[in-house]
């Protein structure tokens, strides 16, 4: 047995921070091999138009220009991107542009400024075509089509009506309904996307650096697009300045830049500017839920029906929100509650807008809003207390593992406890009193509650999983006793260099300073699914723990052999292998390392040399974390402005490796939830012109918008080695619902219900005015 953990569970300062604090982090834009050429893209100003004439010759005359590429050039070279299910689409528009921001020409020049000069010189004549933006309109008879050859704009459809669903609704004492439109957003990592590619003649491979969440995926995608063997593409990830889902996948710009590097034999680099990021990064969310909930007289939640409609944009991408957000929602719509049946219908529509992809909390913000709103509305209709009604419907401790009617299985959690803890922290009875008093003075105070589950750490969640179902780790002890851990997950802010080192240091009973965690290079890191879906610490950390455990066994076996003791009589202790109870009889790890690497004669017979172990860890199909958010707000009736007075989060993510980092994820997630609930919206005019293309019109939460978040923790260990659960998305999943419901609660004397986010002061004020008149 190893010692009690010294590092796991501790609030350790992050190992990676000194370089970031001193300006020594190295992000994609900071890399500039000798002779690097810069790329700029010409993007469509129209939502839908035929390209009548495209003349790039003037661009070729601009000083410094090395090449100009059009969609036709790529078609001729047979270069395509892969959408959902591998469906090919051209990286640069051919014949027609399909959305504002659609790239149609790439220019390569000595400097980015020259490339942009050349972009200005390209001559394009567009013939505007009718555009369609709204998904409901896109699916209507006679709507303009995004692809004129297609029969309709319907690009995805799935529906399911379980047996007994209609009967549950027919017999229900109370049926509540609502329309819930989650606006279009985008993740906006502060570092924009970027890629640098160069052909390495010595090893005859394409070396790619990219700001990405998944090096192996980018490698595989580029190899496929360019027709290269995977072994001939190497992807290296430098420091990544945030991702939040927007950097998971292969973008058209990636394919174009990599192809140009091969064609030109020079390093080629593209760094997105913020204006193009707003129209070319995956857009996200954007779904309409037309939902109803059936409840019995005593408040028992019986069934849900939900019709989800989503505008996928011009292409249906692999991680399209139109599919992922809605399909996952259909599985987890009941949240922490027991429901007997969930019926759903999903319609995805092609539209003349930027394609949808992923953003932190895929499925969650909309689904949690639906689930908690149905609960609130039913409580008020049935005249029941909303907290009691939630408790009544939650899965209880003794009911785990709980098989939901949707087919997913919830592992143990603390659903009722987290709600109770949150209500104690926010002082629910005290709040009700404050609210009554405030109302008497004409003030609007509200409390929003969002109890949530977060499906994390996806393993083999389907027989043929669409995502890599495992992560890997290789743990190696060098002859000198230092430990190097190679993992397949990578960090874009999450702190893997620290948390995974904490786990491994404890598993091997060494000081954390002896452990180095490495990731992000496909030539060195083992294969895996990268960082997405709140799974790095569980699946990546689980793999690291398994590998470290195997290495520990080997170290103990060698130590026991050298100490002439039975393996069960020795233990790892502070960097030594010692005979239990006889600390004097011990060997340093450096000595074990020396023997394992240099002295075959002293090794146990038949044992392989070296100190290295690996693991490919497949976790349970889904590990659910859970918790509850409670937000107290006050609405100013004169301006519609909402002030968040208090914000409480109760989180149960199993065993916490580093509570400070867990809280960092929670607080950051709540801030993004504030953005969703009150500020951020990527709107489009009917003509398909985007309203928000700068950070001046896309309002990210600033320090003055966010509340102070009070974090409380419960701990229900999972079945993963170490007992952790994922949690990187939970705060994003629960906070919009908590905030919107808080505003509705504040305005309940007026009976205001919101059908769409964000709740800008204008929308709140208008809703209040409408009900007053």
């Amino acid at each position, binding site marked *: 047995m190893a010692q009690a953990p010294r590092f796991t569970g501790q609030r350790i300062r992050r190992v990676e921070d000194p370089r*970031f*604090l*001193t300006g020594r982090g190295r992000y994609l834009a900071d890399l500039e091999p000798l002779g690097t050429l810069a790329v700029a893209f010409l993007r469509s100003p129209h939502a839908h138009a035929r390209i009548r004439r495209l003349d790039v010759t003037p661009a070729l005359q601009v*000083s410094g220009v090395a090449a100009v590429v059009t969609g036709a050039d790529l078609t001729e070279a047979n270069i395509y991107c892969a959408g959902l299910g591998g469906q090919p689409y051209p990286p640069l528009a051919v014949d027609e542009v399909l959305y504002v921001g659609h790239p149609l020409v790439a220019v390569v020049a000595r400097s980015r400024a020259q490339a942009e000069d050349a972009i200005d010189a390209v001559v394009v004549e567009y013939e505007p075509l009718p555009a369609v933006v709204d998904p409901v309109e896109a699916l209507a008879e006679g709507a303009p089509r995004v692809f004129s050859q297609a029969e309709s704009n319907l690009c995805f459809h799935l529906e399911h009506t379980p047996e007994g669903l209609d009967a549950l609704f027919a017999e229900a004492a109370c049926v509540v309904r609502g329309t819930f439109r989650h606006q279009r957003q985008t993740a906006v*990592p502060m*570092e924009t996307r970027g890629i640098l590619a160069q052909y390495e003649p010595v090893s005859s491979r394409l070396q790619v650096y990219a700001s990405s969440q998944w090096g192996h995926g980018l490698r595989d995608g580029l190899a496929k697009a360019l027709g290269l063997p995977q072994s001939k593409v190497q992807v290296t990830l430098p420091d990544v300045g945030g991702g939040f889902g927007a950097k998971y996948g292969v973008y058209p710009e990636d394919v174009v830049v990599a192809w140009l590097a091969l064609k030109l034999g020079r390093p080629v680099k593209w760094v997105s500017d*913020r204006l193009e990021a707003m129209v070319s990064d995956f857009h996200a969310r954007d779904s309409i839920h037309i939902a109803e909930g059936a409840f019995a007289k005593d408040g028992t939640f019986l069934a849900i029906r939900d019709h989800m409609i989503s505008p996928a944009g011009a292409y249906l991408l692999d991680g399209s929100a139109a599919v992922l957000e809605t399909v996952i929602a259909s599985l987890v719509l009941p949240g922490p509650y027991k429901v007997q049946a969930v019926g759903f219908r999903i319609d995805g529509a092609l539209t003349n807008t930027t394609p949808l992809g992923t953003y932190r909390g895929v499925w969650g913000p909309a689904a949690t809003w639906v689930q908690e709103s149905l609960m609130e509305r039913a409580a008020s209709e049935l005249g029941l207390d909303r907290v009691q009604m939630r408790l009544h419907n939650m899965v209880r401790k003794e009911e785990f593992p709980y098989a939901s009617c949707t087919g997913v299985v919830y592992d143990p959690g603390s659903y009722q406890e987290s709600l109770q803890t949150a209500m104690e922290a926010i002082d629910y009875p005290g709040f009700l009193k404050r609210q009554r008093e405030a109302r008497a003075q004409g003030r609007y105070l509200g409390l929003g509650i969002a109890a949530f589950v977060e499906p994390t750490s996806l393993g083999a969640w389907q027989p043929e999983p669409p995502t890599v179902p495992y992560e890997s780790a290789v743990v190696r002890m060098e002859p000198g006793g230092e430990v190097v851990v190679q993992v397949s997950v990578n960090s874009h802010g999450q702190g893997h260099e620290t948390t995974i080192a904490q786990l491994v240091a404890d598993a091997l009973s060494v000081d954390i300073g002896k452990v180095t965690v490495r990731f992000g290079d496909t030539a060195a890191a083992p294969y895996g699914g990268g960082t997405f879906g709140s799974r790095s610490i569980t699946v990546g950390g689980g793999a690291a723990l398994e590998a470290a455990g195997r290495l520990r066994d080997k170290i103990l076996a060698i130590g026991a052999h050298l100490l002439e003791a039975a393996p069960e009589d020795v233990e790892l202790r502070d960097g030594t292998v010692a005979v239990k109870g006889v600390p004097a009889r011990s060997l340093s790890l450096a000595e074990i390392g020396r023997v394992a690497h240099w002295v075959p004669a002293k090794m146990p017979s038949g044992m392989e040399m070296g100190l290295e172990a690996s693991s490919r860890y497949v976790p349970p199909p889904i590990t659910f974390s859970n918790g509850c958010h409670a937000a107290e707000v006050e609405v100013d009736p004169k301006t519609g402005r909402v002030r968040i007075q208090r914000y409480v989060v109760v989180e149960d993510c199993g065993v916490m490796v580093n509570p400070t980092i867990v809280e960092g994820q929670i607080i950051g997630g709540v801030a993004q939830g504030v953005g969703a609930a009150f500020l951020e919206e990527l709107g489009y005019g009917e003509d398909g012109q985007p309203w928000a293309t700068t*950070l001046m019109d896309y309002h990210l939460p600033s320090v*003055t918008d966010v509340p102070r978040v009070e974090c409380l923790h419960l701990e229900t260990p999972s079945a993963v080695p170490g007992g952790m659960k994922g949690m990187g998305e939970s705060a994003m999943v629960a906070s919009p619902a908590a905030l919107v419901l808080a505003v509705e609660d504040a305005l309940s004397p007026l009976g205001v219900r919101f059908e769409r986010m964000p709740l800008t002061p204008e929308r709140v004020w208008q809703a209040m005015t409408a009900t007053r008149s």
Partner: protein
Amino acid sequence: MSTEQLKTEAERPVAFTVNGQAWRGWVEVRRTLADVLREEVGLLGTHVGCEHGVCGACTVLVNGQAVRSCLMLAVQADGCEILTVEGLSESTERLHPLQESFWDHHALQCGFCTPGVLLSAYALLQENPQPTLEDIHEWLSGNVCRCTGYQNIVEAISDAASRLSAEKGGR
């Protein structure tokens, strides 16, 4: 006149001091201070998050004032004294109290906004060594951080202010 000639003529000699060291060179007049600091001076710690003056990632100090280096032309910095994140501390081992406090309070995640936030905070503490939480909120409203939700940044700045004034008081 060809574009080529126009550009050559559009270059001007520029000299400034960065982190105490003199720098001089010819700079295209259209280039921003951020670009010149990164690409000519080679100080990559100054980050560019929007290039339109909203995010504050590019914040540096010019003659003691916090400035968005994406909105300032390099030629405008001629004769100025500039401080970038690289000038805050001598090495990764000897951090400035602000940096130390950011580290202690987990005031950064991806680190991309961090140099700009540190420089803004540095300017605040120069101007107002004992800021209230409100002062910090107001001052920082021009720096966007997408990761942290700001709470730990505010605490770190507040704590650094106390550390710095304790240091001063002790002297």
